């Protein structure tokens, strides 16, 4: 390595390379999955509208996890001044574009709110003292205003940050990094507040009597985990197939694996904190939510959540070699994405089926559409953008990153 290599030459070397072309079969697979998924979703809405609404809510929250979580990871890199993640940042940027589809899903859900939320039934709310006191917050108009406001803010930051990042590919101006750092610093506290309120609105208000002040953080931990896992999956797959234009070392993989491992622990920590405080205080208005998840076959889903979301990934990623083993990372990324859907299912579905867990083809088709959407979106973004931010001044240091 020649230490005199200038960043400009370096960037030119990369940009002169052929644009990355994924095999067409991937894009076609994505479209097939998406079309099959959307058709199946449409059928399932005709078959069982209520159940489909609940499943669509899971899909919305998962889409939000990936889109907003990826945007958070991008912002985190700018704010922390991280260099190791610069070569792989674009993957998160591409994934965060799924935020664009959020309004579509949200609008469908808003038309089905009556099936989802108890507090939309005005005759029920009037007879319930607690719920009638909560009406200033939990009502149609304010709910829709909040949803629109949050999605608007997220999309605003998405367009601003991504626009600067793309512009830097052409100009290579350092000031754009500075601008994005400022934007990210503004975004992170807003992100913290909006994701808390969004999780309270969409998921906690399914049980309007119940409340948990840690709920937002709980959803946040799953969000970051899902965003990290999807980015890791794509990064490692691209690296293994040789599509990555720069050489990613084990040090990069280790950083991704270590972050995932950290957030697995963080999720367990938050989930246990929520459970333990409710268990210890043993107050009826708090325990009802946990007891609901302990009735009938939900009990096994709850126990399964601990195993799927914590014990298995914890031990699979515990050792140092495991965190940089590409094969292990691919398997665990898929596993964690599954675990996040499992987690959302565990949060949302008990409200639909109170006596015990239900699982059928409807629960399967929504993730299919989601996977298809993300594949299509990603390959579209890949065709029209550089996979590596070639204008970023941190890129060279990021490529030469060593632990």
């Amino acid at each position, binding site marked *: *390595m020649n230490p005199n290599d200038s960043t400009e030459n370096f960037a030119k070397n990369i940009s002169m390379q052929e644009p990355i072309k994924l095999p067409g079969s991937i894009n076609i697979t994505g479209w097939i999955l998406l079309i099959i998924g959307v058709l199946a979703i449409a059928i399932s809405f005709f078959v069982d509208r209520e159940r489909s609404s609940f499943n669509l809510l899971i899909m919305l929250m998962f889409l939000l996890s990936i889109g907003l979580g990826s945007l958070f990871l991008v912002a985190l890199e700018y704010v922390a001044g991280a260099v190791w993640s610069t070569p792989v940042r674009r993957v998160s940027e591409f994934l965060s574009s799924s935020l664009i589809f959020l309004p579509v899903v949200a609008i469908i859900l808003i038309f089905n709110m009556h099936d989802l939320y108890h507090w939309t039934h005005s005759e029920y709310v009037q007879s319930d003292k607690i719920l009638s006191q909560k009406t200033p917050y939990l009502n149609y108009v304010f709910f829709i205003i909040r949803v629109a406001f949050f999605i608007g803010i997220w999309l605003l930051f998405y367009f601003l940050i991504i626009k600067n990042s793309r512009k830097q590919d052409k100009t290579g101006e350092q000031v754009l990094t500075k601008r994005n750092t400022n934007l990210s610093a503004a975004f992170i506290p807003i992100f913290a507040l909006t994701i808390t309120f969004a999780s309270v609105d969409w998921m906690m208000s399914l049980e309007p009597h119940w409340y948990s002040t840690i709920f937002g953080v709980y959803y946040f931990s799953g969000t970051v985990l899902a965003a990290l896992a999807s980015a890791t999956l794509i990064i490692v797959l691209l690296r293994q197939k040789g599509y990555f234009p720069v050489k990613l070392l084990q040090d990069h993989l280790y950083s991704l694996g270590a972050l995932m491992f950290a957030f697995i622990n963080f999720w367990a920590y938050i989930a*246990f904190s929520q*459970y*333990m405080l409710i*268990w*210890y205080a*043993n107050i009826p208005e708090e325990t009802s939510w946990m007891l609901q998840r302990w009735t009938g076959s939900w009990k096994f889903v709850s126990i399964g959540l601990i195993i799927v979301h914590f014990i298995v990934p914890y031990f699979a990623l515990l*050792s*140092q*070699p495991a965190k940089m083993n590409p094969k292990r990372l691919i398997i665990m990324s898929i596993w964690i994405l599954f675990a996040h859907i499992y987690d959302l299912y565990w949060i949302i579905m008990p409200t639909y089926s109170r006596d015990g867990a239900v699982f059928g083809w409807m629960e399967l088709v929504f993730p299919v559409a989601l996977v298809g959407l993300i594949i299509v979106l990603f390959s579209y973004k890949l065709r029209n953008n550089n996979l590596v931010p070639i204008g970023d001044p941190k890129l060279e240091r990021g490529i030469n990153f*060593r*632990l």
Partner: protein
Amino acid sequence: MPDKIIPEKILYSVTGIFDHPDEIINAAEQAEKAGYKKYDINTSYPVHGMSTAMRIGPSKLSYIALVFGLSGTTLALLFMWYVSSWDYPMVIGGKPYFSLPAFIPITFEVTVLLASIMTVVAMLFIFFKLPNNSHPLHDTDYMKMVSSDRFGISIQASDPLFDEVKVKDFLQNLGAHHITPIYFDESEISVKNTVFEPKFIGFLLAVFFATAGFTYFSLNYILAWGPFNWMWNQHKLNPQKRSELFSDGFGMRMPVEGTVARGYMPYLYKGNQAAASKYMINPLLPTKEVLSMGQQKFVTFCSPCHGYLAKGDSRLRGQFPNPPSLHSEKVRNYQDGDIYHIITEGQNTMPSYAKQITREERWAIILYLRALQRSQNAKETDIK
């Protein structure tokens, strides 16, 4: 650097100095390629990629962390199980004796604590060989250079491939400068563990006895001296001391025979319900205050067995022989004295409540019970 070879000095290693981190990485790779096993690299800051260049496998330290972490988990759980569900079982917050969720935070803390402390201790004592604080490389020009801004390699004489001339050539070819042999004293390797020397142990014992003796002396004697003994001697009888005033030596006097303590009036009709029924009259009037006191005491003491409405529909039904209803003909025809007697002395399985319920409260309960009886068997006049 000129070196005087002193006969009793032993060759430890041959060292070389490099100026650039890339050179030292190259040197490590070449040394590895040449087959040297016992060599070391000294740099003033961690050089990235060094462990790969030296082909150092993952550290064994993590196993120590694992073993002690798991021991911490086990110890913490065992300790809490022993303390709170075996040795002194206590219900806390209505939870079971062994309630795992409550134990997890402590288990987690102990796991982390033990793992981290023992990792540091193992690092110091096993990997750094702590009681031994001398190393041949100490106080050499080589160490001075590599601890400021140079990068050094030191190939040890104990390596099976070591040959002083060849190693010097090897370092020369790599482009090292300041190629120097390092010698050390015989005395440096024959360092004994001074912890077990009789002198040191004797010193520890002397310190121990001196500290213990001084502490004992100061707590037992000095505190009783001079200005420290204010309020020490008072004109009163101290516990465990003999009274000088009374001839039997006791400071306390026995009360006069037949003394009745306040509020402890003996019951006149012991074992004689007939007399109680005949001679005792309820001294209280059924005012609102009296009835509410009676109700409170009835609910506390009587209702667990007799039921809130005294129908014998107790909350403890099934665990004891069923208590009778207090609305029976027999109880309704009891004099107040009869009921008073039964509360005081007990009847069949019912124990005496003389200790829990004062005399006045007993009468209040009777008045409340009368009201209950009246409510279930109202007279015709009550309807109006």
